[in-house]
């Protein structure tokens, strides 16, 4: 589904990603871990097409298409979704209006049926139940005045509505209390299916108790320095990221 080959990217002229290689197949859940500044959030943003990040080398193939040639909105319509670490507030535009607009843009792209406000309301109600969100959030402006946890749940709600092939969750667990974390994780698990894939970007192992990854990749200094199964996350939790620095010659192994 997704193939990242020797990806280099910089921000403000400073190279952050220094050759990332990663293959994600349908049905898989991948966790990207790493210390602060390792480039893991940059990777997520580059996949979504954030304009501040410049790709200086390598390629990303998504479902046979060159993802890097697509604009951010085109990537979304193709089925890439990024849940933001810091979701943006959009005053004056209600959550329901925003979601229906985004949903219909995608339907239009797929040649599928667009929904009127009433039809959409039904769909929204069903999806909102996944993340235990109250109907009152639908008439409020997007993320405005939402608590940190509500914003993250709103991200997963958007993901549920847009039904992406590839979900990239950028530090979705940060700032969540244990209940919100459970709700968010359960939402993600319910949305997962054999024809979809997820990439979880996280600093801590905690999220991975709830969403169990098939593969764990550890980033450091803009490169993948260690890879393994879910047990690698536990090992990191126990030994800390300093362990990587000390494990001389960490392999930039290709999968």
């Amino acid at each position, binding site marked *: 589904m997704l193939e990242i080959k020797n990806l280099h990217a910089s921000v403000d002229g400073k190279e952050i990603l220094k050759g990332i290689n990663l293959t994600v197949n349908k049905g898989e859940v991948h966790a990207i871990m790493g210390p602060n500044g390792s480039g893991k959030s940059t990777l997520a943003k580059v996949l*979504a*097409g*954030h*304009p*501040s990040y410049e790709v200086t080398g390598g390629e990303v193939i998504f479902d046979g298409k060159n993802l890097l040639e697509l*604009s*951010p*909105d085109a*990537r*979304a*319509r193709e089925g890439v*979704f*990024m849940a*933001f670490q810091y*979701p*943006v507030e*959009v*005053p*004056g*535009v209600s959550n329901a*209006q*925003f979601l*229906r*607009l*985004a949903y*219909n*843009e*995608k339907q239009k*792209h797929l040649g599928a049926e667009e929904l009127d*406000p009433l039809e959409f309301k039904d769909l929204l109600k069903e999806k909102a139940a996944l993340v235990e969100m109250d109907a009152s959030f639908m008439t409020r*402006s997007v993320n405005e005045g939402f608590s940190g946890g509500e914003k993250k749940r709103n991200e997963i709600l*958007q993901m549920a509505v*847009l039904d992406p092939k590839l979900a990239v969750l950028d530090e979705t667990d940060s700032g969540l209390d244990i209940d919100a974390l459970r709700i968010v994780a359960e939402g993600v698990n319910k949305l997962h299916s054999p024809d979809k894939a997820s990439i979880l970007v996280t600093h801590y192992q905690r999220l991975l108790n709830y969403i169990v990854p098939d593969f764990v990749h550890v980033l450091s200094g803009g490169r993948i320095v260690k890879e393994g199964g879910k047990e690698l996350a536990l090992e990191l939790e126990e030994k800390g990221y300093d362990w990587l620095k000390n494990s001389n010659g960490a392999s930039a192994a290709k999968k």
Partner: protein
Amino acid sequence: MKASAVTDKFAAAFNDVVVRQSAEPSWLSALRQQSFSRFQEIGFPSVVEEEWKYTNVAAIAKGEFSPVTHVNGAAIARQDLDAWTYAEAPVRFVFVNGIFRQDLSAQGEAQAGVVALTLENAAGDDRFADSIRQTFARRAESDNGFVALNNALFAGGLFLRIERNVASNYPIHLLFVAEAVTGKAPASSPRVIIQAQANSAATIIESYSSSGAASYLTNAVIDFEVEDSARIQHFKVQRESANGFHIAATRANLGPKAKYETTTINLGGAISRHDIDVVMDHEGAECAVDGLYMVEGNQHTDTHSVIDHRQPHCTSRQLYKGILDGKSRAVFNGKVFVRHGAQQTDAQQTNKNLLLSNDAQIDTKPQLEIYADDVKCTHGAAIGQLEEDELFYLESRGINPALAKNMLTYGFAEEVIERISIESIKRELDSVVLNRLSQGAGVSGLEVLK
């Protein structure tokens, strides 16, 4: 051009008004004469004057206008008004080129306690003359040439009184329509005095529209007298034609514990200038003076606001927002005065501007002058562009960049539009804002925001 050459163009019209209004009280005739002399002396404002530094009205001074002093062949009929009326406001006072037109107006169900008559008639009526005279006296010494010209030329004005303890059942709509009737561009001088007597309440809608893209001048003076514990909500919607000039002075005098809330939406006009003054010369008065200006192309809009705290325990709130596209230019000058002894004043003022183009220009100057020591006052101005992160967020959900830009701009405007408590005005403005934004962006489907 010499000032006299400019003001002479209005002399024939002034003489015409003097003849036509010969029945009006002598104090009013004297005021007209005095104001016309004043206008001849000072002419239209120029950019050397501090208050007009950024707004050049040479296009008006040089223009050839035909001042409208009486009903003169305007062809607008009742059914033509439908596009500009609001279902919630069945009580409607219609003005064509500034002249009140009883035949086009609608009283709705007769409302006891809401008195409306032409300003000229009211000025000669003992029941109203004293208060009208006082209101005029406040405008008599104006050093603003436009106000002086309105004093001299207005005809077919309206006096509206909401009597003591009466709450108007419906919003009252003052609908001003501009229509070209001769070869020359009409110059209109709308004049309205609204008097809310003690403990009364009303909602006033003041809207400006035109029946075409013609050039014309609207030079309006609107006064509110909000007496003891009266409450006025005032919504002004300025949608003049793209070639129209809109000059307006609004003033509200607030009595003890009076409340005046006004929201102005400025969308139209080649040049528009709005002077809004709220005077709180009694304790416990309260005002909210909000607005939105949205300009594009070569439009120029200027808001000069003065909120004057003269007595203790008064509260003012001000939020003005601006959206500028193309090569447009906007001016916001907001003065808040807290006079000697006006203790326990609570004043907040904010002006925020969104520049959608690198060629647009905003001059903003919030000013707070405080001469009392026990007050709570804040003010601020901001100028910004759409945030890259916000645009990216919307785009990352599959929304194309043009639409994302429109949504964020719409969201910026919405905070002010939401203050208008009349649903059909809100929806009209949503549609105007969105349609204007979508021009040239190749965007459709914006109705989804409704």
